[in-house]
Structure formats: structure tokens, C-alpha cells
């Protein structure tokens, strides 16, 4: 069986033998106890299970974990929902990242199942806008396109959208 290793939330994971049949989400849940990533549809439709993969060339992408095996993440650098908030010395989260804070303040979610996926994708959007700001008038379309593949069955997207729009507009340098 191949040995799997990767970097998750800046922590190098010890190589371990993993069956090629194990999906990434199972690996996170059952082998690493990282249960923040949620299993939604299991068919790559809802995007609840998305995590961030940071590539060596400096680009990042949001990748589904329910339909890709753990081995497809071999050697990659990954961020999950557990990695966003700042933690104290004991490992407790003490400050949410701006996206998490905006979603919480705006009551963007109810059951919260889709939130890790939304948070990861929105975090990527913020990082992208820091590098390449866009015109204010294009922002709403840009957010819609960015979050388009994420499904939510509680709040109807409006609050996620509003939280993210307000956050982006409140930060300098993200829009022109």
C-alpha cells in the first residue's frame, strides 16, 4: 500500500499507509480527526466538502474531498476549515478569520453544514482580490460566479452573499 504524506494547515503529516479506495474526506475525518470538513452530497455537486490546495507556483484552488481519493493529495499543501482561525498556545481558536467573522456576524448560516466549503471558497476570493482587485461594479457578478457551485439549503445564499460583499467593500485595495 502506498504511503501518504502532505502538509495540512502548515503541519507536516506523518507518512501512513492508506488504501487507494479511501476518499480525502474519510482520511481527514477518520485518520486525522479533522472533522470540520463536511460530507454533503458525496457526488461533487454541493461543494460542502471543499478544502484549499496551495500549489507550488503560488496559486491556490478549492478542491472537493468527497470525490477525490486521499492519494490524489499526495505531497500537497492543504488548508482546511480548522486552519483559518488564530489559535493560542494551547491550540484553542481565539480569533476567527475575516470571512468566518463576517459570516457569523451576518448570521449567514443555520445548520452550518455548507459553511466550511463557503468559507474556503470565500477566503480564496479575498486572497485573489488582494492580488488582482476588480471594479466595484463587477463585484456582485464576481461573487456570484465564485460561489455558484456551493449549495446551501437553509439561508438561501443571500446572507452569505451580503456578508462577503460587505467584507470585500470594507477592506481597502480589494476593489477599484
Amino acid at each position, binding site marked *: 500500500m*502506498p504511503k501518504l504524506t502532505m502538509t495540512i494547515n502548515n503541519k507536516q503529516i506523518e507518512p501512513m499507509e492508506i488504501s*487507494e*479506495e479511501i*476518499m480525502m474526506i474519510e482520511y481527514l475525518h477518520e485518520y486525522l480527526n479533522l472533522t470540520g470538513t463536511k460530507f454533503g*452530497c*458525496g*457526488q*461533487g*455537486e454541493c461543494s460542502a466538502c471543499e478544502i484549499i490546495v496551495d500549489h507550488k507556483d503560488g496559486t491556490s484552488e478549492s478542491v*472537493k474531498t*468527497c*470525490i*477525490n*481519493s486521499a*492519494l*490524489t493529495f499526495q505531497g500537497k499543501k492543504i488548508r482546511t476549515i480548522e486552519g483559518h482561525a488564530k489559535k493560542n498556545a494551547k491550540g484553542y481558536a481565539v480569533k476567527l478569520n475575516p470571512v468566518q467573522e463576517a459570516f457569523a456576524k451576518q448570521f449567514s448560516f443555520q445548520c452550518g453544514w455548507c459553511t466550511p466549503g463557503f468559507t474556503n471558497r470565500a477566503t480564496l476570493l479575498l486572497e485573489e482580490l488582494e492580488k488582482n482587485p476588480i471594479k466595484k461594479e463587477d463585484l456582485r457578478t464576481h461573487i456570484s460566479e465564485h460561489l455558484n457551485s456551493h449549495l446551501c439549503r437553509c439561508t438561501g445564499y443571500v446572507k452569505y452573499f451580503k456578508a462577503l460583499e460587505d467584507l470585500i467593500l470594507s477592506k481597502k485595495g480589494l476593489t477599484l
Partner: protein
Amino acid sequence: MKKLTILWTIFLFPLVVCASKDTTLIKKGEYLSKIADCFACHTADKGEPYGGGVPFITPFGNVYSTNISSDKKAGIGSYTYEEFYDALHKGIGKHGNLYPAMPFTSFYLITDEDTKALYAYMMSIKPVSQKNRDNEISFPFNIRAGLKTWNLVNLSNEKFVPEEDKSEKYNRGNYLINSLGHCGECHTPRNSMMAMDKKRKLEGNLIVGYVAPSLQSVELRRQEWTLKDLVSVMKNGYSRRGTVLGHMTPIIYHSLSNVSHEDLEAMASYLLDSDEEVETKALTFNGHDKKDPGYLLYTGYCTSCHGINGEGIPNTTPALAGNATLNTKKPLNTMLTIIYGIKNERYSQTNAFGHMPSYNFTDEEMTNLINYLQKTFTNIGIKHSLEEIQAFKEEVIKGMENAEH
């Protein structure tokens, strides 16, 4: 009382009989129009029913379907039966020759009786005033008179003749597939004049980015289709041998899912050239070869939906084991689904399969994966070289680009 009875007999009874006869004819026409799928080609996205405006992308430019509602000005409401017959059988409309995007090279086989029913139905539908869109055809193909010559060479005026040594069921299928169903318009390759190549009937064809697969009985039998499988794929859009995709999906939705079981069986009987059910074979799964470079690609990206052993998920994801789309010498549709993914496919109001994401594999990965899928889930016994896969990929991408422009 007696007088009343006489009055009823003389005046009202014939009216009731006529109305009932008309209703029966219209109902029949409505059913036949479903087989011919008039709605799909003559109803634009968010447009009025039968209002036309659906674009047909051809090498010569875009042709737009026309309004065929019963509106006397914008539609065909002013057509006499003879004019309607000519449009269907000879490709001649009131405004001149029709472009062969209208499948009159198949419809010429429709019987008079069925044409009458279709006419009765089309004249009964709601008039829609949506204006026809001008075609965007380049010179010299925009000169409709040239179509007369095309028709002389490519259009037959023969009537449908049942094959004497075949059953009624087979011949009903033959009639439906080749006339109303106009299956050959996509599934038969076109010749240099862009007409159906009669020598290669139903051999399969690359059209608007997709492969309309071979429907020849030899190929269908090699792929181990049964009559039941064919009826299932036509009725539901999916079967033990896989699903339809691309432009076939709306055809299932608007047309074939509404066709009677009896007629679907007849069509399957014609396609498989058999009145009786053929032997049902187990779905092919040749076991995994864990040393094959395609194995980790398969388990990495395919198994969560298509299953460890290619079994799929009922009503959601097709099985790969024994899948006919995989079981072809040139697996272009397989490659196409990998490169472009598939949107949710809605086959009827109650049946829909899930989407498939697109994958950006290297050519080497694509070669390994396709070879692995064919080796594991079919008995076709072909191993493609990297160069072959690159050529297929080019063909797929070119086909898709042409379809979009």
C-alpha cells in the same frame, strides 16, 4: 320527444361523430409529433412553444428553426394540407426551399395517414406570433434556389416499403426510426454534400461536438445490448449499458420518454434486428490490475461515484462495468465527458442523473486512464498509444469548439 330524437339524429349526432373523429386524429398527431420531436427543434430556450428560433450550427452558418404554430402570419396556420405535406416530404415551404436542418430527408417516408394526423394536430395548437429569425448563412449557400439542386440529388420521393421477410414489429420500428424518429440525421455520417451517406446508414457520426454512436445491429450486439436495455435507454435515458448524453438528453425528455412501450419495443427490435429478446450478458468487470498506471487514476478520481468495481449508483451515476460509451474503438464520448464534465442530465420530469466534474489530465494520464477503463470494464481488447489519445483529444476539442461557434 320523437321530434327531439329525430333532430338529434339529423343534426347533432354527425357533429359529435365529426368532433370525436377530429379529436382522435389530433391526439394521434400529437403522439406522432412527440416521436418526430417537433417541439425540441421548434421551441427556443424560454421561447413560446413551437415559436421557432432554435439555432442549428452548420459549417455554412447558423440556421434558425421557424415558427410552426398555427398562427396564420408568423406560423404555418395558413398552410393547406398539400403545402404542409410538401414541407415535410419535399422540403418546400411557402417561402421557398427549406434548409435540410429540417429533416425532410427522413420525413419523406411518413405515410399520408400520419401526415394528415400531424397536420390536424399542428393546426390545433396555440397560435404564437413570435417572428422568425433570419438565417446567418454565408454566400452562396444563402441562395435557396441552390437547394433545389441539392434536393434533386439527395432527396428521394419513394414511399416507405416494409421489408417482406421481416415481422410487423420490426417494420414498425423500421418506419419509426427512419421516418418520424429521423435517427439517421445524427447517427448516419454525412457525405461531401452534407447529405446522409446511405451506404453508411446509422454507422455513427461526430456531430456538434458529440459522437452520435453507431446504431447498427452488429455494433449494438457486440456491445451486448438487449431489447430491454434499448427500450430502457430510450424511455429513461439510462440503462444497464449506460446513459445518453449531450444533445440526446432533450430528445429523451421531449420525445422518446413519451413514446409507447410497444413502439419503443418495435424500434429496439429494428435496431437489434431481432423480434425475440437476445441473451442478457453480465456487465463486464475484468478485475483490477493494481500495477497498471491507470489504477490509481481510477481509484483517485472515479470510484466515489462509479464504484470500486464500476457498479455506479442507481438512478444517479451510470455503471462503467459493461458501459457501451466505453466500449467503442474511438472512445471520444468518454474523453469528452472527462475533459468537459457533464451537467445534470434530466431525462424526464421524474428522472435525472447527477453531474460529473471536468478533469484536467495530462495526455499521459488520459491515455493511462482510458486504457484502464477499457481494459477493466469492456472486452474490446484495444490499447491506445499516447499519439492516438492526443489525436482523439484534438478531435474532441475541435468538435466542441466548432459546436460553440
